[in-house]
């Protein structure tokens, strides 16, 4: 059974879009196809009008899920960002003056200039995400692809990262990200793509995040609320609500 079928997507320059859908919907597969690490069995992928051919790396910056990073790897912030300059002609195993300046400028742009010499493990979740954003942006890519950039982050840090992404988008960076956080996508992203083996719908969140489209995407009853102009999405609980089963809350006690 194919993971994805009849997927036709067009991402415009300067767009900021989120791929949403349940686990197993094919979000990561689609990202890998765009990144060139997987080849489609049928069909073609074009970046900037150029056909993406087998084994060819597109000019795409990639920010993987933080959970896939080996945080014990002995590498500093500066070195991690330097990896993004792998396409440079520098054959020596050290940064040249120009590369060092570019790394410094990128760290300043993302507000982590003071952390250049720190080990990547010794950073907060938000700072770690900024490091890998810096690595992705330093090669000046046509498109920035992020795999669940807010997963594992607390609500405030996640908000900060999405604001930062929106700011990068305003500066002209085209972004495509996957996320399970529908509320954050509704609040921050101008374009969403609902995926479940095929593109169910795409458009502005207010047009796409409807109960019928979301229920079709997630194969379950979804509810959409508007409060103070903000959109909130919730799956309708199955059967009894937990609070119906336990009417009296059990008080906690500090010994």
């Amino acid at each position: 059974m194919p993971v994805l079928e009849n997927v036709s997507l067009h991402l415009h320059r300067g767009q900021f879009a989120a791929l949403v859908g349940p686990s197993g919907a094919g979000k990561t597969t689609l990202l890998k196809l765009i990144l060139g690490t997987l080849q489609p069995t049928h069909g073609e992928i074009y970046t900037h009008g150029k056909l993406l051919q087998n084994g060819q790396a597109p000019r795409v910056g990639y920010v993987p899920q933080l959970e896939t990073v080996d945080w014990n790897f002995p590498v500093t912030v500066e070195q991690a960002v330097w990896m993004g300059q792998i396409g440079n002609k520098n054959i020596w195993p050290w940064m040249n003056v120009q590369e060092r300046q570019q790394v410094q400028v990128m760290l300043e742009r993302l507000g982590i200039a003071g952390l250049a010499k720190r080990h990547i493990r010794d950073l907060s979740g938000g700072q770690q995400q900024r490091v890998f954003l810096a690595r992705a942006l330093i090669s000046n890519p046509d498109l920035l692809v992020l795999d669940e950039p807010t997963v594992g982050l607390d609500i405030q840090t996640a908000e900060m990262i999405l604001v930062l992404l929106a700011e990068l988008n305003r500066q002209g960076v085209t972004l495509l990200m996957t996320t399970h956080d529908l509320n954050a996508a509704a609040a921050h992203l101008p374009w969403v793509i609902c995926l479940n083996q095929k593109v169910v719908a795409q458009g502005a969140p207010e047009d796409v995040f409807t109960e019928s489209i979301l229920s079709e995407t997630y194969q379950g009853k979804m509810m959409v609320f508007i409060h103070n102009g903000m959109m909130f999405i919730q799956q309708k609980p199955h059967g009894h609500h937990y609070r119906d089963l336990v009417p009296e809350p059990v008080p906690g006690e500090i010994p």
Partner: protein
Amino acid sequence: MDILFEPFQFEFFRNGVMVSLLVGALCGLMGVYIVLRGMSYIGHGLSHAIFGGAVVTYVMAWNFYLGAGLWGFLAAVLINQTVRRTRISADAAIGVVTTASFAIGVALISRYRHFTRSFDAALFGNILGVTVEDVQVVALVTLVVILIIFFMYKQLLFTTFNVEVAQVYGVKTEWVDTLFSLALAATLIASMQILGVTLIAAALVIPAITARLLTDSFNRMIILSTLMGMLTNLAGMYLSYYIDVASGATIVLVQATVFGLSLVVSFAQKRAARRLTHTHI
């Protein structure tokens, strides 16, 4: 001072010291990548595979270095391709490929029992057998491996850190892995004479993990691991000479002692740091 210079009157010791310093540097350098890739078992497995190759080259009367080197390289490539193209995990692939290769060697030895004793050196290391030709070959291998690591530094660093992301950024990770396999096979061949098949894995891993305990910097880890490999090999050589024990065993025991001491120092540093940051409410 006599203790230091007395052994140098013997040619075998002079050759042995030169080879052990080169092998120490090689194993220390390659060990960093092996440890960080979580492939510690590959040194152990591949050295056994090369043993099979060594027996085959002996039977076929081929050049030992070329025959066993090619055998080891093919075994490493076979492991890499099995892992990349199937759902078989690295440790299982290493287990199958290298043990089968080792079994070929054992089968040939049991078939032609008359040359069994010749492979003691390959199994356990024998510094007495180091010739000037061996020194030249090991020096050449060391030079080539250093050049590979020097000019492939960025690609190796990125591939070791995250192979999938490196691929997205245009690193030809399959080529990097193939080149690395070649360098690893050459390192193992070069180290076999002095350390023996059974002990190479330890010499590859111990300097690197000791260095990892002492630093959080990749560059410093490379330098520390390389120096530690050289110094512990030198100390092991002296010890081997004076207590009359196989060189491979003394080298690994010296390295294990240094690792144990580093572990104690590392624990003490962490406890001291915790005590400093601990606050009473």
